[in-house]
């Protein structure tokens, strides 16, 4: 029987790879009896999705602009380097 440490490891790994049949079975059994790991599992999965969406929000937020000084600096360095 898996302990919580092993179960949490598998829960994390399940986001990164397909678990083996044996691992999946072991994890399922553990989650069936352990409400803490079940909680952990739900939170970790939701976090994974949320982080992805924060990044998307930054990418699509038109209020975030390349600062003017940076633009000037880039133009200047391009002009210097094109010669």
């Amino acid at each position: 029987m898996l302990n919580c440490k092993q179960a949490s490891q598998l829960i994390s790994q399940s986001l990164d790879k397909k678990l083996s049949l044996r691992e999946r079975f072991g994890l399922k059994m553990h989650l069936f009896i352990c409400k803490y790991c079940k909680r952990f599992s739900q939170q970790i999965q939701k976090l994974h999705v949320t982080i992805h969406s924060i990044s998307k929000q930054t990418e699509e937020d038109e209020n975030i602009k390349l600062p003017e000084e940076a633009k000037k600096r880039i133009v200047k360095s391009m002009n210097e380097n094109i010669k």
Partner: protein
Amino acid sequence: MTTENANDWLNEHGDYLYRFALARLRDPHQAEDVVQETFFAAIKNNSFAEQSSPRTWLTGILKHKIIDVMRKKNRETPASELMHESDANMDEFFDDKGHWVDKPQTWDVPDNLLEQKQFMGVLQKCIDKVPNKLATLFMMRDVEEKDNQEICKELNITTTNAWVMLYRARMGIRKCLEINWIGH
């Protein structure tokens, strides 16, 4: 690509490229730098094919620049901090029988927008607390939806190493959230 072109492209795509970089590097200065390097590389090599859009082409260059920065961050971490399966020290999370030291509490990622915004703020702080190397790997995995093999190749680590590191990063971020979000 001519300088004139470059100026137009900077005006047209500069903001987008900056946001793209910021979403991944989370550091405004580094994001500015990679955008600068991208335009620099763009005027230097003329591989732009007319059939592709300038934005797609520039984003392709930018991606490589971002990975370079991540790789560099990764190298700067001392080798002693490299973790292997056997020595992923999880003592702060589990006792020697493998039971939770602090049992996971009930909390949820909020559904309403206002609360979500606050949550993102806390989450960002928690990600910043995680050691750089872990955060890099974590962001690459959780932001890019890249598969492990690809990330490992880019960062020169083994897949086992990556699983352990991702596990540790997630444990740390979750715990930090639990402490700082429940009590908000």
